[in-house]
């Protein structure tokens, strides 16, 4: 394609390439340190704080933000909203890369990563929530890989294989919704085992419900956010159908996000009421909780609604970015800030700079792979030789 030659004509030493190259180089060195010197050399993890930002950010945030895949494919293939069809492949790709990087991050976090398959062959209890999460993430990563494969097969010219995979679309979408519902909620349920460690404002029996609902919000917002960046940086790769969705996707997904956020705000208040934890709102933790609930739930619900009413795409896009940040704040609060809240300050966890470095490395790796794929495969445009499925 002419765009390919144009893209290839770009200077190799672009600012993006230099910054990404430096991050990947430093990340590579940190990776060697992690796997040769062990967790203690590169992390501040301890017996009190066995889960740091590799779980709080890379895993919990990564899984939530990757929910755009199942949300979009369910909207298009199960609920028949075909006018969002062009958003499916970028959302599936984002989801697939998100989950793949979650699994990669787990290799860093788990002390003996070669034992990651153990839940399937060694464990004794299928009632374990960790087993459910492991099983669902492994299965859903496979589902996302197959769901994305038509784009790769079109790129490789494998028409017969592509036609077989396309026939599985509805089945894979149903699998995706079921598996996502199971493990998104189970990630929240993991914290139900620690009622004495998690601050009462964040601890509630509704945690699994909260995690699932916030995953839907994260998925909707992430599709808008990712679509904004794609239109900004890859518009030359888009066909007419994708360019036409520049406004329809933010309007439709923003409306859905506004309503789900409003519902989430209500069940958060109900959670406080059912737990009778009102008095904690007057404490320092309460102030931070109010920042989360009012600033990152109620405010974006209102801003999304105003954006949809006024058809203000810019406002919707900024709100999507704010909501994505809110998901990060929520997962950090549950996994790090409000966790072990009773411990003295000297025992509290703060990530080592090398932990942050590995997380930045993994995110950068995801962006580089995303760019590699969308500049080559038919993700932001329909391949001219194939009908849309």
């Amino acid at each position, binding site marked *: 394609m002419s765009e390919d030659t144009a893209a290839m004509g770009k200077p190799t030493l672009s600012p993006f390439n230099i910054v990404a190259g430096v991050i990947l180089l430093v990340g590579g060195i940190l990776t060697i340190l992690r796997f040769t010197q062990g967790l203690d050399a590169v992390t501040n993890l301890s017996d009190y704080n066995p889960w740091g930002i590799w779980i709080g950010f890379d895993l919990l945030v990564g899984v939530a933000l990757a929910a755009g895949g199942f949300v979009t494919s369910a909207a298009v293939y199960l609920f028949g909203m075909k006018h969002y069809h062009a958003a499916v492949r970028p959302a599936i790709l984002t989801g697939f890369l998100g989950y793949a990087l979650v699994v990669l991050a787990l290799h860093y976090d788990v002390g003996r990563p070669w034992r990651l398959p153990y839940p399937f062959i060694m464990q004794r209890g299928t009632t374990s929530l960790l087993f459910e999460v492991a099983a669902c993430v492994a299965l859903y990563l496979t589902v996302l890989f197959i769901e994305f494969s038509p784009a790769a097969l079109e790129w490789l010219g494998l028409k017969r294989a592509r036609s077989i995979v396309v026939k599985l679309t509805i089945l894979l979408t149903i699998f995706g919704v079921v598996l996502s519902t199971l493990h998104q909620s189970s990630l929240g349920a993991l914290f139900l085992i620690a009622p004495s460690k998690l601050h009462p404002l964040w601890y509630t029996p509704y945690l699994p419900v909260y995690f699932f609902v916030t995953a839907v919000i994260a998925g909707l917002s992430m599709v808008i956010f990712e679509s904004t960046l794609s239109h900004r940086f890859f518009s030359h790769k888009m066909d007419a159908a994708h360019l036409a969705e520049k406004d329809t996707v933010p309007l439709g997904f923003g*409306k859905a996000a*506004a*309503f789900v956020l*409003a*519902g989430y705000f*209500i069940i958060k*208040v*109900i959670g406080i*009421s*059912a*737990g*009778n934890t009102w008095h904690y709102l007057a404490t320092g933790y309460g102030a931070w909780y109010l920042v989360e609930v009012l600033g990152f739930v109620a405010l974006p*619900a209102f801003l999304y*609604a105003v954006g*949809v*009413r*006024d058809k203000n795409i810019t406002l919707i896009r900024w709100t999507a970015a704010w909501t994505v940040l809110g998901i990060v704040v929520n997962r950090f609060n549950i996994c790090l800030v409000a966790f072990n809240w009773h411990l003295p300050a000297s025992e509290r966890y703060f990530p080592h700079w090398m932990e942050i470095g590995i997380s930045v490395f993994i995110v950068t790796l995801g962006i580089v792979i995303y760019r590699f794929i969308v500049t080559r495969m038919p993700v932001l445009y329909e391949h001219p030789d194939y009908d849309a499925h």
Partner: protein
Amino acid sequence: METINTLQEFMLHTKNITYVLMVVALLGITGFWLFLTERDDD
């Protein structure tokens, strides 16, 4: 606030408030939906 000594008292107290909140929430979400979709036909 009167002292809560038993699970019965706790449930009575929290459900009293929660039921009132649910009525407010149902009215609120209906109003929010109307606010959100008011200009859909434009």
